[in-house]
């Protein structure tokens, strides 16, 4: 007989006289056992409530179902016509507002997307062929080739990891920052893009192209004064315009 079975047997008075006496001695010596016997009463209260809980849940559910049916029956009655007309008009008005808002948002998004596509095309046309001849050991060269290949194949996550690793080498910091800035721009992280591109400019790596991407970042973030500054630095910058 285990611990709990003993407690139940004791409380239901089904222990023999000698077992009962032994159990009571054990309770006197063991505060934990004494507490467990007291807890049993609470447990039995809980167990006793299971059936009642089940019954009340069914009753509650059934009453709610009836009330739901009553409400829908009431709702079928005809309302005064002026009240229903007003409600109908308000619903149409609300729907119209939602449609207009969606349309405006959609148009703004579409316009911005169009602009970004044009910016990318402009970047491609503007970019001079890269002369990223890396002098250094073979590993770094391999890493650079892999990173640029990943970038060209639009595998930006992979490219980001590779360029970050490349950036640990001082000689490749400019290159790494430039590409990380370009990837950030393509992934809509404009502030991050600005940070990387300014770093790459300090290294003197592809400054004009960095400026071009910076213009696009500043344009999206509406930083007009920064755009003007860059126009002084770089000739023939493409400044996007809204149609």
């Amino acid at each position, binding site marked *: 007989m*285990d611990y*709990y*079975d003993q407690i139940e047997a004791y409380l239901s008075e089904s222990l023999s006289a000698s077992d009962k006496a032994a159990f009571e001695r054990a309770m006197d010596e063991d505060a934990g056992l004494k507490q*467990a016997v007291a*807890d*049993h*009463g*609470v*447990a*039995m*209260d*809980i*167990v*006793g*409530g*299971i*059936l*009642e*809980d*089940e*019954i*009340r849940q*069914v*009753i509650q559910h*059934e*009453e709610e179902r*009836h009330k739901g*049916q*009553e409400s829908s*029956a009431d709702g079928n009655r005809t309302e005064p016509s002026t009240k229903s007309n007003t409600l109908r008009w308000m619903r149409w008005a609300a729907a119209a507002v939602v449609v207009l808002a969606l349309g405006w948002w959609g148009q703004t998004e579409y316009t911005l997307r169009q602009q970004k596509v044009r910016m990318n095309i402009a970047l491609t046309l503007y970019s001079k062929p890269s002369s990223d001849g890396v002098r250094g050991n073979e590993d770094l060269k391999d890493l650079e080739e892999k990173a640029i290949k990943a970038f060209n194949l639009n595998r930006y996550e992979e490219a980001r990891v590779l360029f970050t690793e490349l950036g640990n080498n001082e000689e490749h910091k400019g290159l790494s920052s430039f590409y990380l800035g370009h990837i950030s721009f393509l992934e809509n992280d404009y502030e991050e893009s600005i940070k990387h591109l300014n770093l790459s400019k300090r290294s003197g790596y592809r400054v004009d192209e960095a400026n071009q991407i910076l213009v696009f970042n500043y344009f999206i973030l509406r930083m007009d004064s920064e755009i003007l500054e860059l126009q002084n630095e770089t000739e023939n910058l493409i400044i996007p315009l809204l149609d």
Partner: protein
Amino acid sequence: MREVTFAIFSDISRKKKVEVVNDSILIVDQIRSSEANRSTAIRALVGDDVLRQKIRSYILTNSGEASDAETIFHDAIVAFVKTVFTKKEFRLTTHLHGYLLGVARNLWMNELRRKKKNHTVSIDHASTSAGDTDTIALLLKGERGKILKMVLDVMRKKCKEVLMHWASGFKMVEIAEKLGYKNAGVAKKKKSECMKELYGYLRENPHIKERIRPQ
């Protein structure tokens, strides 16, 4: 062969169907057989507008309000189902409505005594057969009830089923058969496991013990 008559009618004003169980024996069997059948029986009782109206009339003519009538109607159903389920020797010897009205009257009298109101309550001795129903401790009320309910919600369904049957006086053999356990030994083991879980929960939440059973 028992004959069962079901009367199904539409309540035109509320547009719902109510199933009236006229066979007392059937409803007792339903309550004892399974959880699904028990739920069906309870739903039939809740939807019995004739019974509801009888109890409501009695309460309203004996110093009660509409909310009291609804409470007593529900409590009478709870008391009846618990009695049927836990007392295997129980037999319904009168019409179901008569029995439940008697239960409701007992409950309301106890409630009035509790509220210490002075009034005269008429008792129709002929129609009451609620002698079996003592003052029924309805556990799930008030703050204590909320705590109990919280604990019950945590318990696994299988545990609730086996413990409920065990607490209602079913033997392990009966529990095994009803709940699909291999034998009485497996049912007993399941019951022990469930009790241990419950003890463990109470140990981890001593504040619950104090609120269910104040020291």
